[in-house]
């Protein structure tokens, strides 16, 4: 399956290589570099590149390309999913997944890669198991290891590997038993020029941080489980139980994990009316004009909240890629700060919190390249925001129960709505 892995940084250097079968020369990456050169943006490198003898499948995360070398037929998603899992693991181990972090921990990285694949086929990818095989580096452990000469490699096969619950370590102990769940919803939307919604959908996840002693068996029930008709689960969730009762029943992994992710499209919110839409929590009034022949353009933008159920809209950030013809901008924000990069033509405006009484706006003029023709498209505006303590879809957790253990855990649940890919066409 996966033959070799090369890690390539943004400047095109291979800084790590690992082979699971016989060694493949790193010159195979030349094909990748070629494709990289051809692509205008780093994201435009095609994920699958055929070469005469191999196939290169790559993912780009944290501006590092993870290039896997494949020799024969294998589902490309298999490789892609695995590479992303590798990145997630690195992030889990080192906090960040940067070139520096990988270079600093090259031995752990190597040990991890060795455990994750055998002969190119995934062996252990579950974070809890890997952590038992190879302890994550901490400063304390490094010190202890140098003094005592002990290692951070486990000697026993993690019990999870063979047990009922491969994702959970055994013998977990905490003094404070706590279970936190974050319901985070991201709203993806495209709003057209006139302010009407073209598409809107909600992508939700429930991320959990569970620190409970022993083998707790949790059930999580919802007030309105019917919202969740398009879901994917962490393997710990008992699917049959969900099918039958719409209750999430699971023995949680230890630590942080994503319990489920769901998708609420405008269709399944209102099964009868296909046009009805997800409520859009902000509106944008805009007036961006370029006049033919003039070297000036007008720029006006006002933001306001709507349908937020009384919750404040925070951390608002507006960004827009202005046309190439724009030389500079002279804008006045009523609140927050704005920046314009004349090279990349990226305008960004950090608004902060929207005050419904006094709506934030950004007004002013843009200077255009003299003699250049009027840009034929107005820029799209991307908006980011957060709304605390509310889930846009209306999903509500009913209760969390724990069985199988005697103590009383501390339980917490948090809701948040964020803008995902929220675009306003102007």
């Amino acid at each position, binding site marked *: 399956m996966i033959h070799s892995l090369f890690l390539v940084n943004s400047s095109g250097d*291979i800084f790590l290589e*690992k082979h699971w*079968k*016989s060694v493949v020369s790193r010159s195979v990456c030349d094909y990748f570099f070629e494709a990289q050169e051809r692509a205008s*943006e780093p*994201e435009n490198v095609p*994920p699958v590149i055929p070469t005469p003898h191999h196939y290169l*499948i*790559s*993912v780009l*995360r944290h501006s590092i390309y993870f290039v896997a070398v494949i020799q*024969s*037929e294998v*589902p*490309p*998603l298999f490789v*892609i999913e*695995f590479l992303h899992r590798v990145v997630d693991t690195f992030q889990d181990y080192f906090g960040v997944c940067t070139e520096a972090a990988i270079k600093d921990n*090259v031995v752990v*990285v*190597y*040990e991890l890669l060795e455990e994750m694949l055998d*002969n190119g*086929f995934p062996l252990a*990818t579950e974070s809890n198991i890997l952590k038992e095989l190879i302890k994550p580096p901490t400063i304390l452990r490094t010190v202890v290891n140098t003094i005592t*000469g002990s*290692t951070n*490699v486990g000697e*026993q*096969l993690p*019990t999870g*590997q*063979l047990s*009922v619950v491969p994702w959970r370590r055994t013998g977990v102990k905490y003094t404070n038993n706590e279970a936190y769940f974050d319901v985070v919803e991201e709203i*993806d939307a495209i709003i*057209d020029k006139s302010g009407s919604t*073209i598409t809107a*959908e909600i992508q939700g996840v429930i991320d959990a941080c569970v620190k409970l002693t022993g*083998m707790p068996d949790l059930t999580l*029930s919802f007030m309105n489980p019917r919202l969740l008709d*398009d879901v*994917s*689960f*962490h393997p*710990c969730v008992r699917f*049959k*139980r969900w099918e*039958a*009762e*719409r209750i999430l029943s699971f023995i949680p992994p230890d630590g942080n994990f994503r319990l489920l*992710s769901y*998708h609420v499209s405008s*269709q399944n919110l209102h099964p009868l009316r*296909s046009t009805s839409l997800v409520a859009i929590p902000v509106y944008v009034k805009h007036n961006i004009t370029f006049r033919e022949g003039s070297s000036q353009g007008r720029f006006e933008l006002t933001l306001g909240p709507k349908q937020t159920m009384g919750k404040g809209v925070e951390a608002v950030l507006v960004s827009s890629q202005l046309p190439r013809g724009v030389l500079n901008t002279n804008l006045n924000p009523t609140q927050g700060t704005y920046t314009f990069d004349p090279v990349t033509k990226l305008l960004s405006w950090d608004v902060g919190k929207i005050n419904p009484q006094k709506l934030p706006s950004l007004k002013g003029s843009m200077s255009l390249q003299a003699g250049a023709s009027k840009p*034929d*498209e107005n820029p799209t505006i*991307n908006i980011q925001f957060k709304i605390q303590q509310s889930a846009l879809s209306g999903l509500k957790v009913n209760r969390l129960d724990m*069985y*199988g253990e005697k103590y009383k855990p501390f339980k917490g649940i948090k809701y948040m709505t964020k803008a995902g890919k929220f675009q306003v*066409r102007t």
Partner: protein
Amino acid sequence: MLSMSTNNLSYNDQGGTDSAVEVGQETTPTSSNAGAGFGLFSADFKKNDDLKEMLESNKESLKLEAMKRIVGLIAKGKNASELFPAVVKNVASKNTELKKLVYVYLVRYAEEQQDLALLSISTFQRALKDPNQLIRASALRVLSSIRVLIIVPIMMLAIKEAASDMSPYVRKTSAHAIQKLYSLDPDQKEHLIEVIEKLLKDKSTLVAGSVVMAFEEVCPDRIDLIHKNYRKLCNLLVDVEEWGQVVIISMLTRYARTQFTSPWKEDSVFDEHSVRAFYESDEEKTRDETEAKAYVMDPDHRLLLRNTKPLLQSRNTAVVMSVAQLYWHLAPKNEVSIVTKSLVRLLRSHREVQYIVLQNIATMSIQRKGMFEPYMKSFYVRSTDATHIKSLKLEILTNLANEANISTILREFQTYVKSQDKQFAAGTIQAIGRCATNISEVTDTCLNGLVLLLSNRDETVVAESVVVIKKLLQTQPTQHSDIIKHMAKLFDNITVPMARASILWLMGEYCERVPKIAPDVLRKMAKSFTSEEDIVKLQTVNLAAKLYLTNSKQTKLLTQYILNLGKYDQNYDIRDRTRFIRQLIVPNDKSGALSKYAHRILLAPKPAPVIQSAYKDRDRYQLGTLSHTINTKASGYLELSDWPAVAPDQSVRNVEVIEPVKEWAPSLGKTGKSKPAKSSDDKFYSDSGEEEEEEEGSGSSSSDDSSSSSEESGSDAESSVEKNSSQSSEESDKSSSQSEKSSSESDTEKKKRKTKKPLQKKTVKPTAKDSDSDENRNVAKEARSSSAEESSSDSESDSDTDADSGTEHKKKTKSKAKPKVEVKSNEEVSLLNLDDFTPAPVTQLKSSVLSPSLLGDLEGLCLSNVSSTIQVSGPAFVPEKSHDLLHRMTGKGLSAQYQFPRQPCLYQPTMVSVQISLTNTSDHPLEQIHIGDRSPTGLNIHCFNTIECLEPEASVTVSMGIDFNDSTQAANFQLCTKEDHFSVSIQPAVGELFLPITMTELDFHKEQGKLLGMNESSATITMAAENMTSQPISRPVATVANLGVVPSGQDNVHRFAGKTASSGAVVLVTVELRELSTALITINTEKSVMGSMLLRDLKQALAQA
């Protein structure tokens, strides 16, 4: 030893210099400065030198440090092979981390240093015998990764040994090793296939994925190895780790395509059939049978589809995709669309995932617009998408366009055309062109829109528009001379060669429609000919020739001028073309017959180009594969075969040969015993950990073989005749409601698991088969027969599936005696029940009709000592206690009480039956008493029939079934009368959720052995004195919980057994009396929650009594 080390040393030196050179070579190209290169080189050399010293030192920490640095070198791709001898000495180190790093090194360089690598082999051979499974496994991993041909026999031996290791983890490693050995030495194929065959039979979920991977790599054509394991693999699938799932699913897709008939031809078969029936009524009967087969889906085919469906919910995108492709290639057309939602969900994942998924959707959407049309908006392009994502989305939108949605799509396209990403804008124009050709209603609109785009400022947009317009005009040139004129006017402003060439071509092609303009364009071209691009020149020559033929008066001179220019052009293509055209159109003595036909040659009507998707016909490659992505056959791609016209013998999948236990370590044969049952159990994962614990148990492997391969019915029956009967039972099962299916499935499985004991005592009766279909499904019936006969007949159906090889023969001959009749009837049944959702089959109906009287019979029966062969026994004790459901005050005169009769529920085996007595305490009759809304909504209640009228002071007892799903959560529902409705709730005590079962003491121990660890809870209590004798002990226990008594050999130990109603999990209770009137209560069950609740109740009951 001494000589060897000196040897090493000298070798070392040599190696050192070698590699020094290499290192030097590697660094120099990167630095232009030779001096710097040298500096680097010497530094590296130094470093390596001290590494060797460190490795040879006595300090572990130094060695470890050295190894870490060496791994760093390897990671950077630097050569560290000269350190091999120094490193290899540490292979036997006690320090685990050091050892691991040495392994990493060894695997990397062993191929280059074969002789030295051999030194390490003995260490691994020793480690292969280590008691620690992790060490055994890693030794095998490294040993098999050392690519040295000499050790092939050693590897072979090690793999064979590991394949029968106790630990599934080691077996998994051996499956990986198979592939390594195969790539090292393909000659070993035959031996390796033997090992694969053996491992395929393994029932551990851990092994399944890896061994299928090995199968795919070594012998993908040996489909015969899969037959016997097919059902097992299907059933295990949910519990296999995600990567294994992908591999297994893709293998099963191929398998299914060779083994089952196409589910897609249903209609055609129908037609054919009816025609024949019309003409050949004589033969109808026989026809009937053969034809019937064609559109009854093989149950195994259905099994695969059903068992993969839940995986659409996987978090692993690769798994979701592989299920999607399985449905695409295997499912009946009307079922494929269930994958849509999940695929669309994947679009939110990483960019790379989107790319692959969109590609596959593009292919699918060509054939099946309907599948993705409701999700059209999910394919709208965002300005932040990467270019290749954008063009794929465009492709899909184009595929989805139809008369109804085209206006929406075109409006969306309008936005895209303006995009700053010009490549994307050009793509959009092509897409518009495709929409215009596909949907004739909008052709004109599109054309007009495109013409407007001709005045766009951006060249690429204009060029693309011209090209697309040209294609469109070709399809219907008559009405569009205006557009051609318009384009001629724009001609001067257009600079993109392709666009200019296209316009020229259009002029020439339709010069007769624009007689005035065309010569003028030619005049302009003559002026600028020399400065044009080649492609434009060629078209100019073409235009000249065509005009010469149609309008020679005006253009003769111009043409000659252009031909002269072309004659001396630098490009040979143009010179060539010019020469050819001159000969063709200018008549002279040398020109032969050809010039007569010049007009017909040049101005022949040309077929319009077909604008079609690049994804058309891509599904010749299996979806989701690499080959599909790159649209060429990748090496190692396994072709998906066409459906066979006639299904191969389905009986090959029946597991009939019982593997003798001897071949495997006895423990191994057993490992999967409870596994298959669990896979379809309501647990989402299975206990691979249990295996270890089960190992000491004994018993015939026949039963696990059969139970593993059986699906919910007894489909593993040995002969094909029986196969049919099981099929029918499955059909009838299907027809009952969906929820019942899932739960009852697990139920019977569970039963099967335990049936091994009956088979020793029982003889198989020929009638068994007849009752098969009913019995399997209907526990209620079982209970009836058990009470009536007090014998074992109820589980006959199980016994014949479980029959060992001895009885099997006998049975086979018996069943052969009357196969003819049976086959027919069964097939009819399945035909009738083709629809999955037809209402309840006859059997069920019957039982519910019988129910009241039966219930009466059963009541008060106290079967505390039922024969051990009986599965679900009668209750040991039925407490009289009834609970208030609705008080007469709140119920406005209607009062209700409920009690648990502790009978197996007649409606569905997973339900707990509840008896409700309703009394009318008011002074007027109550009408239409029935059950209304219930919560939670998923709650599965079998309601009693509406009571039309209840007279004052009258009371009536009704029974209902509630599926509590093994939880003590109250079932809330509304009790309605004609005028009112009252919310009531039934809260079961945990003990009521069980059904008593009986088993022998031996079986009890065996079951208990499987349920240790976290499945066990125990407590010591002080007992009240009167409880110290056997009889009273069983009374309080039976009062608390509906459990059966297990005969016990010891006086002070009492055992009780039951299973949970809903999921059929076994619950075992042991009460051990000790001195000083203490007792130890132990409860073993996988439902740990229920276990602990039961323990609490028992403690209370025993202590207080």
